[in-house]
């Protein structure tokens, strides 16, 4: 304290300003610096507590991510032999984004300092605002920020996770499981649920373009995130975990969804009466009547996931096939049992398994290997039996795709079948590409079968790890009926 901060910077360190691609002139709100910062200040780093949220955030970004990170604490001094800045204003370089993790009462002042410094946005991790009954303090922060067109995420949130770029989650890096970079944009009102879903996505091999925990959503809200992701080239599907909307915010949300060029998936909490009570005490937002919510989502082609399994399945399927279908599925299987399980799941999810054209069945029959011609069942669901070989499967998938009554092919593959080769995934992907109809595969998720799974996934064909999961993927495509 008391020393000018420059004393702590070794004199031989040249001052190299980071080239911030996100900076543009003008005061228009732009979230680019917030989500793609080149430089970041972490305000509230503790000099004594190494597991303080700000320290966790500072350490992990400083050590593991390309974003250049500066720690800030009014005491100044050194932190791990690097300069600790007494305020954001003491940082010589341009600061794109600030993570604010100070006590709620200090947040307005810190936000003002950030604005003065020319910081372009913030993640306010701190709690103690509307969720704790302190709405006026939250409003003060919003007023200051709006006046200066200074967007922020939070308060009371985990902030943002942009794979390979920046991570403001105050969870120790070694403790959380993070999905790889991918094309799903994820927005959550709850930080805890977001982390859970990240584990879920990582387990399913689904990647994220950006995950944002918006907490009390005092400035950046779901609707802003829709705009952002709609324009973001790296995002193909936009997923939301929503507890409730503010007054008429739901209307604005679905109006924006209608303009949005990408599929939107939503997981809603607070469906039951008890659940609604839990929500209103959780993030200080009112949960409305769930039926109204659900019906209006359907009306506007939002794919509402009933649970986290559907959420993952919907995201994966829609990232491959953004176009909707009416819901008529052709099922190709190597075992009668799998076909029956799939048909049951289809009926449960209101998906049709239509009768095939006679021409389709005849075409398949005359081309089947002679060994299975008499034992294969050629009505939908097709059962080619465990004696079929690659060429039977590829041929049947081709004619199934060409059937006028079929909009999407479900390929239920049993990789342990003796006639199936490791190349079947790539071969069937070629069929899907040639015929131009969506294909969804089921392959048991085991390391042993990885080569088959990759054959599909590298060709952008979604693979489910269960028959039910494959049907859920088809359900995602059915979300919107074309009129």
């Amino acid at each position, binding site marked *: 304290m008391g020393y000018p901060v420059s004393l702590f910077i070794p004199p031989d360190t040249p001052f190299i300003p980071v080239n911030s691609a996100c900076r543009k002139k003008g005061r228009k709100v732009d979230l680019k610096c917030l989500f793609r910062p080149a430089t970041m200040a972490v305000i509230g780093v503790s000099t004594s507590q190494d597991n303080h949220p700000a320290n966790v955030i500072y350490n992990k970004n400083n050590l593991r991510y390309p974003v250049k990170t500066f720690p800030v604490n009014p005491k100044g001094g050194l932190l791990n032999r690097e300069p600790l800045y007494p305020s954001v204003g003491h940082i010589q370089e341009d600061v794109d984004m600030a993570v604010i993790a100070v006590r709620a009462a200090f947040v307005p002042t810190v936000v003002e300092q950030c604005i003065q410094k020319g910081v372009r946005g913030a993640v306010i991790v701190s709690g103690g605002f509307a969720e704790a009954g302190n709405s006026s303090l939250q409003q003060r922060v919003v007023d200051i920020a709006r006046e200066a067109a200074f967007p922020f995420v939070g308060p009371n949130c985990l902030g943002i996770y942009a794979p390979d770029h920046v991570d403001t989650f105050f969870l120790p890096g070694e403790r959380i499981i993070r999905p790889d970079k991918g094309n799903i944009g994820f927005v959550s009102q709850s930080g805890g649920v977001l982390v859970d879903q990240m584990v879920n996505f990582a387990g399913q091999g689904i990647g994220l373009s950006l995950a944002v925990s918006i907490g009390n959503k005092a400035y950046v809200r779901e609707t802003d995130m829709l705009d952002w992701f709609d324009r973001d080239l790296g995002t193909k599907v936009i997923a939301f975990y929503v507890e409730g909307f503010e007054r008429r915010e739901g209307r604005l949300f679905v109006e924006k969804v209608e303009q949005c060029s990408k599929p939107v998936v939503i997981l809603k909490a607070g469906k039951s009466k008890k659940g609604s009570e839990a929500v209103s005490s959780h993030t200080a937002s009112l949960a409305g009547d769930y039926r*109204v919510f659900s019906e209006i989502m359907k009306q506007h082609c939002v794919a509402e996931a009933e649970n986290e399994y559907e959420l993952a399945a919907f995201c994966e399927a829609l990232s491959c096939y953004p176009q909707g279908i009416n819901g008529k599925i052709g099922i190709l299987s190597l075992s009668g049992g799998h076909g029956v399980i799939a048909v049951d799941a289809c009926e449960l999810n209101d998906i049709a398994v239509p009768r095939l054209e006679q021409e389709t069945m005849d075409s398949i029959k005359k081309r089947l290997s002679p060994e299975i011609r008499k034992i294969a069942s050629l009505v939908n669901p097709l059962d080619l039996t465990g004696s079929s070989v690659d060429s039977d499967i590829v041929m049947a998938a081709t004619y199934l795709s060409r059937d006028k009554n079929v909009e999407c092919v479900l390929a239920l593959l049993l990789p342990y079948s003796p006639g199936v080769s490791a190349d079947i995934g790539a071969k069937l992907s070629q069929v899907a590409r040639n015929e131009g109809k969506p294909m969804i595969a089921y392959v048991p998720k085991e390391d042993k079968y990885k080569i088959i799974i990759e054959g599909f996934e590298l060709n952008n064909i979604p693979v489910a790890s269960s028959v039910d999961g494959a049907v859920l993927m088809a359900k995602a495509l059915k979300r919107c009926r074309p009129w």
Partner: protein
Amino acid sequence: MVNENSGKILEKNKSLGWVQEPDAKALMKLQGLDIPDFILTDSFEAADQFLKASKSPVVAKAVSKKILHKTEAQAVVTGISSSEHLKTEMARLQTLDGCEHILVEQMVQGLEIIIGAKNDYQFGPVIVFGIGGTSVEIYNDTAIRMAPLKPGDVYSMVESLTAKEIISGYRGSAGVNMQILTHLMVNFSYLIMAFEKEIESVDLNPVICTRNRCVIADARIILSSFRTAGEVG
């Protein structure tokens, strides 16, 4: 999309907090929607003349500022086809709490449906649609969409009902004229959008549909001022 006089009707009822049936129906008529032929009177002679001129039985209802829920207050009598029946029921209705006039109207027969609107906290005006009668509350077989409705929304609402065959027709029954139903619901939704600040909820219950008509047999409008207005029975 809305008649300039519609706002005046709502304004007139603001202090009451809800709109009585004759005014509510007048509002629907201004919106181009179908209501039954009626007479609003205190005189038995006038009512009897209406009954005699009518080809079908009539309905008699008490119009009272104190009666929001008419069925519970026994303020509705359906199926009146004789002068004697009309006379006794009119006399009884006139004794009900706050009864100002008697509404006598043509009784339309057909399929009963319910159309409602609600100003939802998260989504603003929404439209509710279902098969009418007492079973609507038991099965809750309804569809909800955000207003204003597009014609496609009306078709999808029908399609999403469990009992959709009742609307679309089954076993030789004609079902509902979808063009007329669509006209009714789309126009109704525009009315609700235009007065979303004034209106809290609306029940068109029942709407009676035949092969060539959808007639609003009863309408109740609760205004946003309802909670601040006086208590009603």
